[in-house]
């Protein structure tokens, strides 16, 4: 079969039986090591005014040891998960309704297109004034960010379901409900999952920014504090943690996505 012999660019890993790309992984690793080494050399001389890697590493250990990093991670994750899950849970049904009923689409779409153009962070001043300074405004902006990203993807998914496939189901005797459950939902799953991933990325970005502006805990807040004390290692620890957590969440969703859409033809 030509399918298996086809070489695709890395980052896909789309075909299960392709095996692990060791060469690519080795190069990834080399790049990382080289990057850290260059950083080390540059910072060792104090040339760029940034902390050298060992200093960042020891701060990492300190912050893990005294439990502060864990507390910050937990409060950031709790916020992002609450907002993200609420956003996605609401976005999927709303997206389906918009895709399925033209009337609903026409009623909702102007709001959606409008709010999509407002960066969720711009809502923070309003949210703080109306919802106070506790968790609610932060969770709300994260909710908004992930909702907007996922809802658009879901309804795009529904309206782009191949009409011939719907007709095929119809001539096999399917009524609207069956078509919705057995054709529309599976056919739009890939779109929804892409939307969910974009939603998570957008939620994570919004969270950190929201914590920079208004929070008493969390990774963003920790950086904000460190900035006041010119504590560069802590800023680096926070940045690296934010990046790693974002990457981990994205990878988990990617794996779920691949699992649920193995049937898709990938080019």
């Amino acid at each position: 079969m030509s399918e298996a012999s086809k070489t695709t660019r890395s980052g896909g890993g789309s075909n299960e039986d392709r095996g692990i790309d060791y060469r690519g992984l080795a190069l990834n690793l080399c790049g990382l090591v080289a990057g850290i080494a260059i950083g080390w050399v540059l910072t060792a001389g104090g040339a760029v005014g940034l902390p050298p890697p060992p200093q960042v590493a020891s701060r990492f250990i300190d912050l893990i040891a005294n439990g502060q990093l864990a507390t910050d991670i937990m409060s950031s994750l709790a916020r992002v998960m609450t907002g993200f899950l609420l956003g996605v849970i609401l976005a999927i049904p709303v997206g389906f309704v918009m895709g399925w009923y033209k009337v609903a689409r026409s009623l909702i779409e102007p709001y959606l297109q409008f709010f999509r153009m407002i960066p969720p962070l711009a809502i923070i001043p309003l949210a703080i004034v109306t919802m106070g300074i506790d968790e609610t405004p932060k969770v709300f902006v994260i909710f908004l960010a992930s909702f907007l990203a996922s809802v658009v993807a879901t309804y795009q998914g529904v309206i782009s379901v191949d009409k011939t496939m719907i007709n095929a189901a119809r001539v096999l005797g399917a009524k609207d409900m069956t078509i919705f459950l057995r054709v529309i939902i599976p056919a739009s799953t890939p779109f929804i999952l892409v939307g969910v991933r974009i939603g998570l990325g957008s939620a994570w970005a919004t969270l950190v920014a929201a914590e920079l502006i208004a929070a008493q805990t969390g990774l963003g807040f920790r950086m904000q504090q460190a900035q006041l004390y010119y504590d560069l290692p802590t800023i680096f620890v926070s940045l690296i943690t934010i990046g790693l957590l974002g990457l981990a969440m994205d990878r988990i969703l990617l794996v779920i996505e691949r699992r649920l859409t193995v049937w898709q033809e990938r080019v």
Partner: protein
Amino acid sequence: MPPRIAPKIVFDKVTRRFDLKDNAFVALDRLSLDIADGEFVTVVGPSGCGKSTALNIAAGLLKPSEGTVLVDGKAVEGPGPERGMIFQQYALFPWLTVRQNVEFGLRIKGEEASRRRQIAERFIDLVGLGDFADALPKTLSGGMKQRCAIARAYAVDPSILLMDEPFGALDALTRVQLQDQLLDTWSRERRTVMFITHDVDEAVYLANRVIVMAARPGRLKEIIDVGLPYPRTEEIRLSVEFMSIRNRVWQAVYHQ
């Protein structure tokens, strides 16, 4: 041709207009046509002759502007499992395996699992996909996808098969193989077939009768009896009789 009994499908002055922005366009103009039970009819004509429109109206996917289509004497109101349809683009459900695709219509009918499996198995074997029952469509070639679609249509036991250029997207060799296989399946599982194509050879090779249509407005031009015996073989395909009928159809299609 079977003795004179009530026709299976009747197109009774079927007209279909599409209202575009400025001009109304007549896709099908008063098509009247009888198709006998168990007959294999092919429909050829240039693009815009309304052949697909006619098929979609018979399937119940499109409403006629005027006139009616009767199936077994009853007016078509919408799609129904007694009329199976095969599409040019296969229209398989890519998230389902071959078996699950074939079982799709049976599930809707409410057949229980063991019976579904049994029926699906039979038709998967009939189209020669036995070794691929648990494969996903993405792993199949175009010809195999279309065979799966044919098995899926057959599984719900329709008395009519409506085929919309089913082999149009396939290469010439696969097409010939599928034509033979379709005739083989049809001779064993006799159904009334209305088959749209733009390939004159295909139209003559498969059919009892070839319906030639003309464009602008889409209408019936001529009905040509093929009269060649079944099973159709390579010998028939290369025979003088075949050539002469083919030439008649060709003339009717291309010199309008």
